[in-house]
Protein backbone atom coordinates (compact mmCIF):
# COMPACT_ATOMS: atom_id res chain seq x y z
CA UNK A 1 0.00 0.00 0.00
CA UNK A 2 1.41 3.30 -1.09
CA UNK A 3 0.24 6.72 0.06
CA UNK A 4 -1.06 9.26 -2.46
CA UNK A 5 1.57 11.76 -3.53
CA UNK A 6 2.40 14.66 -1.26
CA UNK A 7 5.07 17.27 -0.79
CA UNK A 8 7.39 17.02 2.15
CA UNK A 9 9.22 19.63 4.18
CA UNK A 10 11.30 19.07 7.26
CA UNK A 11 10.93 21.73 9.94
CA UNK A 12 14.10 22.82 11.73
CA UNK A 13 12.33 24.62 14.56
CA UNK A 14 8.87 25.18 15.97
CA UNK A 15 8.83 28.60 14.28
CA UNK A 16 9.69 26.95 10.97
CA UNK A 17 6.90 24.37 11.43
CA UNK A 18 4.37 27.09 12.27
CA UNK A 19 5.44 29.13 9.24
CA UNK A 20 4.95 26.10 6.98
CA UNK A 21 1.53 25.37 8.50
CA UNK A 22 0.58 28.99 7.92
CA UNK A 23 1.85 28.92 4.34
CA UNK A 24 0.10 25.69 3.33
CA UNK A 25 -3.07 26.02 5.43
CA UNK A 26 -5.52 23.15 5.29
CA UNK A 27 -3.39 21.19 2.84
CA UNK A 28 -0.66 20.63 5.41
CA UNK A 29 -0.35 18.07 8.20
CA UNK A 30 2.33 17.69 10.79
CA UNK A 31 4.24 14.42 10.75
CA UNK A 32 5.65 13.38 14.13
CA UNK A 33 6.30 9.65 14.60
CA UNK A 34 3.97 8.83 11.73
CA UNK A 35 2.49 5.81 13.48
CA UNK A 36 -1.08 7.02 13.28
CA UNK A 37 -0.80 9.22 10.21
CA UNK A 38 1.18 6.98 7.83
CA UNK A 39 -1.12 3.94 8.26
CA UNK A 40 -4.08 6.23 7.41
CA UNK A 41 -2.22 7.63 4.41
CA UNK A 42 -1.32 4.14 3.19
CA UNK A 43 -5.02 3.25 3.30
CA UNK A 44 -5.70 6.61 1.61
CA UNK A 45 -8.03 7.53 4.44
CA UNK A 46 -5.84 10.63 4.77
CA UNK A 47 -4.43 12.44 1.74
CA UNK A 48 -2.61 15.57 2.91
CA UNK A 49 -0.92 17.57 0.15
CA UNK A 50 1.96 18.63 2.33
CA UNK A 51 3.65 16.87 5.21
CA UNK A 52 5.59 19.06 7.61
CA UNK A 53 7.99 16.73 9.39
CA UNK A 54 8.58 17.74 13.00
CA UNK A 55 9.94 14.33 13.96
CA UNK A 56 13.48 15.64 14.26
CA UNK A 57 12.77 18.55 16.59
CA UNK A 58 15.03 17.29 19.36
CA UNK A 59 14.36 20.45 21.37
CA UNK A 60 10.81 19.12 21.91
CA UNK A 61 11.98 15.76 23.23
CA UNK A 62 12.33 16.04 27.02
CA UNK A 63 10.80 15.05 30.34
CA UNK A 64 11.51 17.70 32.99
CA UNK A 65 10.50 18.25 36.59
CA UNK A 66 9.30 21.84 37.00
CA UNK A 67 8.19 22.46 40.60
CA UNK A 68 5.42 19.99 41.36
CA UNK A 69 4.68 19.49 37.67
CA UNK A 70 6.30 17.37 35.00
CA UNK A 71 6.70 18.93 31.55
CA UNK A 72 6.96 16.59 28.58
CA UNK A 73 8.00 17.77 25.13
CA UNK A 74 5.48 16.85 22.43
CA UNK A 75 8.08 15.01 20.36
CA UNK A 76 9.08 12.68 23.20
CA UNK A 77 8.83 9.13 21.90
CA UNK A 78 6.86 6.54 23.87
CA UNK A 79 10.03 4.58 24.62
CA UNK A 80 11.86 7.65 25.96
CA UNK A 81 8.93 8.40 28.24
CA UNK A 82 8.75 4.77 29.38
CA UNK A 83 12.38 4.81 30.58
CA UNK A 84 12.55 8.44 31.75
CA UNK A 85 13.75 8.57 35.38
CA UNK A 86 11.77 11.76 35.96
CA UNK A 87 8.55 10.20 34.66
CA UNK A 88 9.08 6.95 36.56
CA UNK A 89 9.63 8.85 39.77
CA UNK A 90 7.07 11.66 39.50
CA UNK A 91 4.31 10.29 37.25
CA UNK A 92 4.82 6.52 37.27
CA UNK A 93 1.41 5.92 35.69
CA UNK A 94 2.49 7.85 32.59
CA UNK A 95 5.80 5.98 32.25
CA UNK A 96 4.01 2.67 32.75
CA UNK A 97 1.33 3.35 30.15
CA UNK A 98 3.87 4.64 27.63
CA UNK A 99 5.41 1.17 27.93
CA UNK A 100 2.06 -0.48 27.11
CA UNK A 101 1.44 1.34 23.83
CA UNK A 102 1.52 -0.99 20.83
CA UNK A 103 4.80 -2.87 20.63
CA UNK A 104 8.50 -1.92 20.91
CA UNK A 105 8.77 -0.87 17.27
CA UNK A 106 5.73 1.41 17.64
CA UNK A 107 7.18 2.85 20.86
CA UNK A 108 10.47 3.60 19.14
CA UNK A 109 8.66 5.87 16.65
CA UNK A 110 5.41 7.19 18.14
CA UNK A 111 5.38 10.40 20.17
CA UNK A 112 3.21 11.55 23.06
CA UNK A 113 2.33 14.72 21.15
CA UNK A 114 1.18 12.73 18.13
CA UNK A 115 -0.84 10.43 20.34
CA UNK A 116 -2.60 13.34 22.08
CA UNK A 117 -3.05 15.50 18.96
CA UNK A 118 -4.51 12.58 17.01
CA UNK A 119 -7.39 12.52 19.51
CA UNK A 120 -8.13 8.83 19.02
CA UNK A 121 -10.53 7.54 21.70
CA UNK A 122 -8.74 4.16 21.50
CA UNK A 123 -5.36 5.60 22.47
CA UNK A 124 -3.94 5.10 25.94
CA UNK A 125 -1.92 8.24 26.65
CA UNK A 126 -4.77 10.76 26.25
CA UNK A 127 -6.69 8.90 28.97
CA UNK A 128 -3.70 9.11 31.31
CA UNK A 129 -3.29 12.84 30.73
CA UNK A 130 -7.02 13.26 31.46
CA UNK A 131 -6.79 11.25 34.68
CA UNK A 132 -3.78 13.31 35.74
CA UNK A 133 -5.74 16.51 35.12
CA UNK A 134 -3.03 17.58 32.68
CA UNK A 135 -2.66 20.69 30.53
CA UNK A 136 -1.75 20.85 26.85
CA UNK A 137 0.46 23.68 25.64
CA UNK A 138 0.06 24.69 22.00
CA UNK A 139 2.02 27.24 20.01
CA UNK A 140 0.65 29.20 17.06
CA UNK A 141 0.50 32.52 15.28
CA UNK A 142 -0.96 34.14 18.40
CA UNK A 143 1.73 32.71 20.65
CA UNK A 144 1.46 29.96 23.23
CA UNK A 145 -1.78 29.02 24.95
CA UNK A 146 -2.65 26.40 27.53
CA UNK A 147 -5.65 24.11 27.19
CA UNK A 148 -6.95 21.99 30.11
CA UNK A 149 -7.14 18.33 29.07
CA UNK A 150 -10.88 18.32 29.86
CA UNK A 151 -11.40 20.88 27.05
CA UNK A 152 -8.91 19.45 24.60
CA UNK A 153 -10.73 16.51 22.98
CA UNK A 154 -13.62 17.95 21.01
CA UNK A 155 -14.79 15.09 18.78
CA UNK A 156 -13.73 11.90 17.02
CA UNK A 157 -10.10 12.56 15.97
CA UNK A 158 -10.72 16.23 16.70
CA UNK A 159 -9.00 18.43 19.24
CA UNK A 160 -8.80 22.07 20.24
CA UNK A 161 -5.53 22.47 18.29
CA UNK A 162 -6.20 24.77 15.33
CA UNK A 163 -4.82 23.90 11.87
CA UNK A 164 -2.11 26.58 12.16
CA UNK A 165 -1.09 25.52 15.68
CA UNK A 166 1.13 22.84 17.07
CA UNK A 167 1.07 20.97 20.36
CA UNK A 168 4.45 21.62 21.99
CA UNK A 169 4.21 20.43 25.58
CA UNK A 170 2.18 18.25 27.94
CA UNK A 171 2.12 19.25 31.61
CA UNK A 172 0.92 16.97 34.41
CA UNK A 173 1.04 17.19 38.19
CA UNK A 174 3.43 14.88 40.04
CA UNK A 175 1.47 12.09 41.70
CA UNK A 176 2.75 10.39 44.81
CA UNK A 177 -0.51 8.49 45.32
CA UNK A 178 -1.87 5.24 43.95
CA UNK A 179 -2.74 4.65 40.32
CA UNK A 180 -3.90 1.86 38.09
CA UNK A 181 -4.09 1.15 34.38
CA UNK A 182 -6.34 -1.62 33.12
CA UNK A 183 -6.13 -2.42 29.43
CA UNK A 184 -8.25 -5.12 27.89
CA UNK A 185 -7.28 -6.41 24.49
CA UNK A 186 -7.11 -9.71 22.71
CA UNK A 187 -3.72 -9.55 21.04
CA UNK A 188 -0.59 -8.29 22.76
CA UNK A 189 0.17 -5.40 20.41
CA UNK A 190 -3.39 -4.13 19.97
CA UNK A 191 -5.21 -1.02 21.01
CA UNK A 192 -7.47 -1.43 24.03
CA UNK A 193 -10.98 -2.77 23.41
CA UNK A 194 -11.62 -0.79 26.59
CA UNK A 195 -9.13 0.67 29.04
CA UNK A 196 -9.43 2.41 32.41
CA UNK A 197 -7.07 4.68 34.30
CA UNK A 198 -7.51 5.63 37.95
CA UNK A 199 -5.29 8.10 39.79
CA UNK A 200 -5.43 9.19 43.43
CA UNK A 201 -4.77 12.91 43.02
CA UNK A 202 -2.93 15.14 45.48
CA UNK A 203 -6.19 16.94 46.40
CA UNK A 204 -7.62 13.68 47.73
CA UNK A 205 -9.97 13.05 44.79
CA UNK A 206 -9.74 9.94 42.64
CA UNK A 207 -9.86 10.68 38.94
CA UNK A 208 -10.92 8.02 36.46
CA UNK A 209 -10.73 8.05 32.67
CA UNK A 210 -11.69 5.60 29.98
CA UNK A 211 -10.19 4.41 26.70
CA UNK A 212 -12.46 3.59 23.72
CA UNK A 213 -15.74 4.36 25.47
CA UNK A 214 -16.97 7.17 23.23
CA UNK A 215 -16.01 9.51 20.42
CA UNK A 216 -13.14 10.98 22.46
CA UNK A 217 -10.88 9.94 25.31
CA UNK A 218 -12.98 10.85 28.35
CA UNK A 219 -13.31 11.04 32.13
CA UNK A 220 -15.74 8.66 33.84
CA UNK A 221 -17.83 11.50 35.23
CA UNK A 222 -20.49 9.37 36.93
CA UNK A 223 -17.87 7.26 38.68
CA UNK A 224 -15.94 10.32 39.83
CA UNK A 225 -18.99 11.98 41.33
CA UNK A 226 -20.06 8.74 43.02
CA UNK A 227 -16.61 8.51 44.60
CA UNK A 228 -16.77 12.14 45.69
CA UNK A 229 -20.09 11.28 47.35
CA UNK A 230 -18.49 8.47 49.35
CA UNK A 231 -19.35 5.45 47.16
CA UNK A 232 -17.33 2.25 47.49
CA UNK A 233 -15.19 1.17 44.51
CA UNK A 234 -17.83 -1.41 43.55
CA UNK A 235 -20.66 1.14 43.72
CA UNK A 236 -18.68 3.75 41.77
CA UNK A 237 -17.66 1.21 39.13
CA UNK A 238 -21.25 0.13 38.59
CA UNK A 239 -22.01 3.54 37.04
CA UNK A 240 -18.80 3.73 34.95
CA UNK A 241 -20.65 3.54 31.63
CA UNK A 242 -23.49 5.85 32.65
CA UNK A 243 -24.22 8.40 29.95
CA UNK A 244 -21.58 6.93 27.60
CA UNK A 245 -22.12 5.68 24.08
CA UNK A 246 -19.15 3.50 23.18
CA UNK A 247 -18.77 2.26 19.61
CA UNK A 248 -19.75 -1.20 18.37
CA UNK A 249 -17.18 -2.73 16.05
CA UNK A 250 -15.67 -6.04 14.98
CA UNK A 251 -13.96 -6.45 18.36
CA UNK A 252 -16.83 -5.70 20.69
CA UNK A 253 -20.45 -4.61 20.82
CA UNK A 254 -21.52 -1.47 22.64
CA UNK A 255 -23.05 -3.58 25.45
CA UNK A 256 -19.87 -5.56 25.89
CA UNK A 257 -17.82 -2.36 26.09
CA UNK A 258 -20.15 -0.99 28.76
CA UNK A 259 -19.71 -4.21 30.72
CA UNK A 260 -15.94 -4.06 30.32
CA UNK A 261 -15.86 -0.46 31.53
CA UNK A 262 -17.58 -1.45 34.77
CA UNK A 263 -15.28 -4.40 35.35
CA UNK A 264 -12.09 -2.52 34.51
CA UNK A 265 -13.02 0.55 36.56
CA UNK A 266 -13.77 -1.69 39.55
CA UNK A 267 -10.38 -3.38 39.20
CA UNK A 268 -8.65 -0.02 38.81
CA UNK A 269 -10.37 1.47 41.86
CA UNK A 270 -9.66 -1.58 44.00
CA UNK A 271 -6.07 -1.43 42.86
CA UNK A 272 -5.78 2.23 43.84
CA UNK A 273 -7.49 1.78 47.22
CA UNK A 274 -5.12 -1.08 48.01
CA UNK A 275 -2.34 1.45 47.55
CA UNK A 276 -0.93 -0.14 44.44
CA UNK A 277 0.90 1.68 41.72
Amino acid at each position, binding site marked *: *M*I*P*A*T*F*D*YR*RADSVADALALLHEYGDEAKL*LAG*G*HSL*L*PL*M*KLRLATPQM*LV*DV*GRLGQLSYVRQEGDEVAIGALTRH*RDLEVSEVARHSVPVLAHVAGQV*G*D*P*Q*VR*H*RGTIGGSIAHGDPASDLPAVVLALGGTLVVDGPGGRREIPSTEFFTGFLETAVRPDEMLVEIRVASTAGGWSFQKFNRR*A*QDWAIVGAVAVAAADGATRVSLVHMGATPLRAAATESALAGGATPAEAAAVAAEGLEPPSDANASREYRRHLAEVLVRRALEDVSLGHG
Partner: protein
Amino acid sequence: MRVGMTVNGKAHEQEVEPRLLLVHYLRDVLGLTGTNIGCDTTSCGACTVLLDGVSVKSCTVLAVQADGASVTTIEGLAPGPDQLHPVQQAFREHHGLQCGYCTPGMVMAATSLLAEHPHPTEQQVREGLEGNLCRCTGYHNIVKAVLAAAGGEVPKEPVA
Protein backbone atom coordinates in the same frame (compact mmCIF):
# COMPACT_ATOMS: atom_id res chain seq x y z
CA MET B 1 13.77 14.77 -2.86
CA ARG B 2 17.38 13.78 -2.15
CA VAL B 3 17.95 11.36 0.70
CA GLY B 4 21.20 10.10 2.06
CA MET B 5 21.59 7.35 4.59
CA THR B 6 24.07 4.78 5.71
CA VAL B 7 22.77 1.28 5.17
CA ASN B 8 24.77 -1.57 6.65
CA GLY B 9 27.77 0.72 6.91
CA LYS B 10 27.64 1.91 3.31
CA ALA B 11 26.63 5.47 2.36
CA HIS B 12 23.86 5.86 -0.23
CA GLU B 13 22.31 8.91 -1.78
CA GLN B 14 19.32 8.94 -4.11
CA GLU B 15 16.54 11.07 -5.46
CA VAL B 16 13.25 9.62 -4.14
CA GLU B 17 9.58 10.47 -4.01
CA PRO B 18 8.55 11.64 -0.52
CA ARG B 19 5.95 8.86 -0.39
CA LEU B 20 8.51 6.10 -0.86
CA LEU B 21 8.44 3.81 2.17
CA LEU B 22 11.72 2.83 3.78
CA VAL B 23 11.02 -0.85 3.13
CA HIS B 24 10.61 -0.16 -0.61
CA TYR B 25 13.74 1.96 -0.62
CA LEU B 26 15.68 -0.92 0.91
CA ARG B 27 14.18 -3.63 -1.27
CA ASP B 28 13.55 -1.93 -4.62
CA VAL B 29 16.09 0.86 -4.76
CA LEU B 30 19.01 -0.78 -2.94
CA GLY B 31 18.09 -4.38 -3.80
CA LEU B 32 18.30 -5.49 -0.18
CA THR B 33 15.47 -8.01 -0.29
CA GLY B 34 16.25 -9.67 3.04
CA THR B 35 13.74 -7.36 4.71
CA ASN B 36 10.30 -8.85 4.05
CA ILE B 37 6.88 -7.30 3.75
CA GLY B 38 4.23 -9.38 5.51
CA CYS B 39 1.15 -7.37 6.34
CA ASP B 40 2.01 -3.88 5.13
CA THR B 41 -0.14 -2.58 8.02
CA THR B 42 2.39 -2.20 10.88
CA SER B 43 1.25 -5.43 12.49
CA CYS B 44 3.51 -8.37 11.66
CA GLY B 45 7.04 -6.99 12.13
CA ALA B 46 8.47 -8.85 9.10
CA CYS B 47 9.81 -5.52 7.84
CA THR B 48 11.69 -4.69 11.07
CA VAL B 49 15.08 -3.01 10.62
CA LEU B 50 17.28 -0.99 12.96
CA LEU B 51 17.02 2.77 12.50
CA ASP B 52 19.82 4.48 14.41
CA GLY B 53 20.13 1.32 16.45
CA VAL B 54 16.52 0.69 17.43
CA SER B 55 13.89 -1.57 15.87
CA VAL B 56 11.28 0.03 13.62
CA LYS B 57 8.74 -1.31 11.15
CA SER B 58 10.09 -0.07 7.84
CA CYS B 59 6.66 -0.32 6.16
CA THR B 60 5.62 2.60 8.38
CA VAL B 61 8.62 4.89 7.95
CA LEU B 62 9.17 7.10 4.93
CA ALA B 63 12.59 6.95 3.32
CA VAL B 64 12.78 10.72 3.72
CA GLN B 65 12.30 10.31 7.48
CA ALA B 66 15.46 8.20 7.53
CA ASP B 67 17.50 10.88 5.74
CA GLY B 68 20.87 11.16 7.45
CA ALA B 69 20.22 8.07 9.58
CA SER B 70 22.01 4.79 9.92
CA VAL B 71 20.01 1.70 8.95
CA THR B 72 20.87 -1.93 9.62
CA THR B 73 19.07 -4.71 7.79
CA ILE B 74 19.42 -8.46 8.17
CA GLU B 75 22.11 -8.37 5.44
CA GLY B 76 24.26 -6.10 7.58
CA LEU B 77 24.05 -7.85 10.92
CA ALA B 78 26.76 -10.48 10.61
CA PRO B 79 30.33 -9.34 11.27
CA GLY B 80 31.63 -10.95 8.06
CA PRO B 81 30.53 -12.92 5.00
CA ASP B 82 31.20 -16.34 6.52
CA GLN B 83 30.04 -15.46 9.99
CA LEU B 84 26.73 -15.16 11.75
CA HIS B 85 25.65 -12.61 14.31
CA PRO B 86 25.11 -14.26 17.75
CA VAL B 87 21.33 -13.86 17.39
CA GLN B 88 21.40 -15.50 13.95
CA GLN B 89 23.61 -18.28 15.30
CA ALA B 90 21.21 -18.87 18.18
CA PHE B 91 18.18 -18.99 15.86
CA ARG B 92 20.01 -21.63 13.84
CA GLU B 93 21.03 -23.71 16.85
CA HIS B 94 17.65 -23.59 18.56
CA HIS B 95 15.50 -24.04 15.45
CA GLY B 96 14.05 -20.57 15.84
CA LEU B 97 12.61 -20.71 12.34
CA GLN B 98 10.63 -22.93 10.03
CA CYS B 99 9.58 -21.24 6.78
CA GLY B 100 11.84 -18.29 7.62
CA TYR B 101 9.53 -15.55 6.45
CA CYS B 102 9.31 -13.79 9.80
CA THR B 103 12.96 -14.48 10.61
CA PRO B 104 14.74 -11.34 9.35
CA GLY B 105 12.27 -9.18 11.28
CA MET B 106 12.43 -11.45 14.35
CA VAL B 107 16.22 -11.34 14.37
CA MET B 108 16.30 -7.54 14.06
CA ALA B 109 13.64 -7.10 16.77
CA ALA B 110 15.53 -9.52 19.03
CA THR B 111 18.78 -7.64 18.43
CA SER B 112 17.13 -4.37 19.46
CA LEU B 113 15.53 -6.08 22.48
CA LEU B 114 18.90 -7.40 23.65
CA ALA B 115 20.45 -3.96 23.29
CA GLU B 116 17.79 -2.62 25.68
CA HIS B 117 17.70 -5.70 27.97
CA PRO B 118 21.04 -7.53 27.73
CA HIS B 119 19.86 -10.21 30.21
CA PRO B 120 16.12 -10.53 29.63
CA THR B 121 13.80 -12.88 31.46
CA GLU B 122 11.67 -15.22 29.38
CA GLN B 123 8.70 -12.92 29.99
CA GLN B 124 10.68 -9.91 28.75
CA VAL B 125 11.59 -11.80 25.58
CA ARG B 126 7.97 -12.73 24.93
CA GLU B 127 6.77 -9.19 25.53
CA GLY B 128 9.70 -7.68 23.67
CA LEU B 129 8.75 -9.62 20.54
CA GLU B 130 5.03 -8.76 20.71
CA GLY B 131 5.38 -6.71 17.54
CA ASN B 132 6.49 -9.73 15.48
CA LEU B 133 4.20 -12.48 14.29
CA CYS B 134 5.28 -15.99 13.33
CA ARG B 135 2.83 -18.38 11.72
CA CYS B 136 5.07 -21.45 12.00
CA THR B 137 7.09 -21.94 15.14
CA GLY B 138 4.65 -21.29 17.94
CA TYR B 139 7.37 -18.95 19.27
CA HIS B 140 8.90 -21.37 21.82
CA ASN B 141 12.10 -21.91 19.89
CA ILE B 142 12.37 -18.25 19.02
CA VAL B 143 12.22 -17.42 22.72
CA LYS B 144 14.82 -20.10 23.44
CA ALA B 145 17.08 -18.69 20.75
CA VAL B 146 16.88 -15.16 22.10
CA LEU B 147 17.58 -16.34 25.65
CA ALA B 148 20.51 -18.35 24.35
CA ALA B 149 21.87 -15.36 22.43
CA ALA B 150 21.75 -13.40 25.68
CA GLY B 151 23.87 -16.10 27.28
CA GLY B 152 21.08 -16.94 29.69
CA GLU B 153 19.57 -20.19 30.80
CA VAL B 154 17.49 -21.80 28.07
CA PRO B 155 14.36 -23.43 29.48
CA LYS B 156 13.59 -26.97 28.29
CA GLU B 157 9.87 -26.33 28.36
CA PRO B 158 9.12 -22.63 28.35
CA VAL B 159 5.92 -21.72 30.11
CA ALA B 160 3.72 -19.53 27.96
